């Protein structure tokens, strides 16, 4: 596909929209960019996934650089989970080269619907130890929560589940071109003891490595068109810069409901296309 200046501008705007939402929700934006490129602009899903993975890497690097030193990201826990996500993403990147577009679209619909359901079901839960002097352990964490204005402490539970979810997230990341935060963040939040903001920040840290596993393979297969990718990456960079500024001011319940609504719409659209 030849990218004209006007198409580049449209891709840039799509990237900016996806980047803003991604930074707000800690998802990397790919879950929004893939449908925009595939359903909206008609790119094959493999190319949409490859472009999206490239933007996921950029977002992850930028967000991690921006939040470094705030303790919101749990680096040690993230590095443990990366062992699983990187394996999943490399295997997913190889598998993706042999799967049809319709199957990938149906898988995309399934994943987004499941995540929307989990998000709604658990939207009132908080994973916070009230005593700020409690010991978070080696893998737990402590950070200052801007919404409540106090220190927050949490401990990690269910490490095997977190590793399993990370492997699946890595796999789905490469297959569908998303960061995999849509799977990890709800699981880490709902069953592994992490507060939503810590889970989202840790996921944002990890998805750079996860997306690299898949992006290399798409790049090798020649499915990463440089002009379109550059337009999308620049758009996402600007969008996530804005989203990052807004993120600490947004109440958690609003974030969860916004996420669930968007995912439900994306899921329906992808299913309709995948069933054609």
């Amino acid at each position, binding site marked *: 596909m030849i990218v004209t200046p006007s198409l580049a501008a449209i891709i840039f705007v799509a990237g900016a929209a996806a980047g803003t939402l991604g930074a707000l929700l800690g998802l990397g934006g790919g879950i929004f960019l893939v449908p925009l490129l595939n359903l909206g602009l008609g790119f094959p899903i493999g190319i949409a996934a490859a472009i999206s993975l490239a933007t996921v890497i*950029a977002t992850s690097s930028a967000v991690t*650089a921006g939040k470094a030193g705030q*303790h919101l990201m749990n680096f040690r826990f993230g590095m443990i989970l990366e062992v699983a996500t990187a394996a999943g993403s490399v295997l997913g990147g190889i598998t993706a080269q042999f799967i049809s577009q319709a199957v990938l679209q149906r898988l995309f619909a399934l994943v987004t619907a499941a995540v929307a359901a989990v998000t709604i079901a658990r939207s009132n839960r908080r994973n916070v130890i009230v005593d700020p002097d409690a010991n978070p352990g080696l893998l737990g964490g402590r950070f200052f929560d801007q919404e409540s204005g106090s220190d927050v402490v949490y401990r990690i539970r269910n490490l095997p589940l977190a590793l399993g979810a990370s492997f699946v997230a890595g796999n789905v990341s490469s297959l569908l071109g998303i960061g995999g935060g849509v799977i990890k963040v709800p699981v880490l939040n709902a069953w592994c003891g992490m507060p939503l903001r810590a889970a989202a920040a840790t996921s944002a840290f990890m998805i750079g*490595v996860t997306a690299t596993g898949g992006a290399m393979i798409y790049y090798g297969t020649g499915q990463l068109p440089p002009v379109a990718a550059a337009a999308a990456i620049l758009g996402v960079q600007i969008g996530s810069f804005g989203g990052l500024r807004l993120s600490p001011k947004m109440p958690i319940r609003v974030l969860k409901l916004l996420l669930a609504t968007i995912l439900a719409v994306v899921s329906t659209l992808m299913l309709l296309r995948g069933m054609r």
Partner: protein
Amino acid sequence: MKPGDTQLEILIGRVLRIGVVTSTACLAVGLVLALVQPQSSPALLQAGIVLLIATPAARVVLSIVEYAIAKDRLFLILTSIVFLELVAGAVAALVFHKRI
């Protein structure tokens, strides 16, 4: 959390910032060039993409070095496994590339 974790966090943040700023600059200039002169060489765009993909890998290498210096064996092993997995991905990419 262990002593030194915050230092590593800031160091990683710095490496990622350098990587993302350099690659974004290459992509921005490369994109303008490609749109103004469609016949021009895409070398700058390619450099931007390769730099972008290499940045998280560089962060993993940095963690390996830091954990080796701190004699943190468990995390040295874990981050080394992550690096080997990325190498496996690069090998797979080369195999696919040869088939095109």
